């Protein structure tokens, strides 16, 4: 069973790797933003598989954190890519 779970983790990692290459090779920035999301979900699957394969339950916590911060990073990408103004220019120009 352990080697099956390791194999599954390796398989998911390979597909995530291919997906990352596909996403990062495209020129558009919106495609790049998908990378964090892809790794967030793929990383969660890989980590829960590794947790089951090695019987180390703390790894599930790492998966939890990965999911949380992948979403956070994606928000940062979208914020940075959309030409929003900063707090300062908002208050000086608008009120």
């Amino acid at each position: 069973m352990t080697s099956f779970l390791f194999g599954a983790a390796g398989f998911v990692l390979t597909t995530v790797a291919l997906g990352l290459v596909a996403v990062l090779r495209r020129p558009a920035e919106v495609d790049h933003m998908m990378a964090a999301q892809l790794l967030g979900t793929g990383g969660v699957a890989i980590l829960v598989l590794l947790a089951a394969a090695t019987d180390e339950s703390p790894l599930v916590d790492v998966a939890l954190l990965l999911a949380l911060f992948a979403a956070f990073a994606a928000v940062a990408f979208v914020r940075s890519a959309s030409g929003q103004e900063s707090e300062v220019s908002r208050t000086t120009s608008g009120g």
Partner: protein
Amino acid sequence: MNLAFDILTVSAVSAGALFFLAGTVGLLRFPDPLTRLHALTKVDNLGVGLVVLGLLPRANGLSGALKLVSIWLLVQLSGAIVTQLIAGAVRQRGPHG
């Protein structure tokens, strides 16, 4: 009983891994960002969901199983919202921005 659980683990994890493969194929082959996002969300829902389902019998007691399910819920919810945000960026900037 143990055998039945093992069969569940193997089949559900394999099916989940297959969805990861399908998502990657989608990312490679689909023509525009919105359809590629669509491929990505299938991975969130079904890929991680099936992997979690398969690992439930091996989870560390009831609390471990609950933790796994809540991770799946978190991935699904945040994934859906983040995808929506990226789709908004696509609409704002056009598919090549």
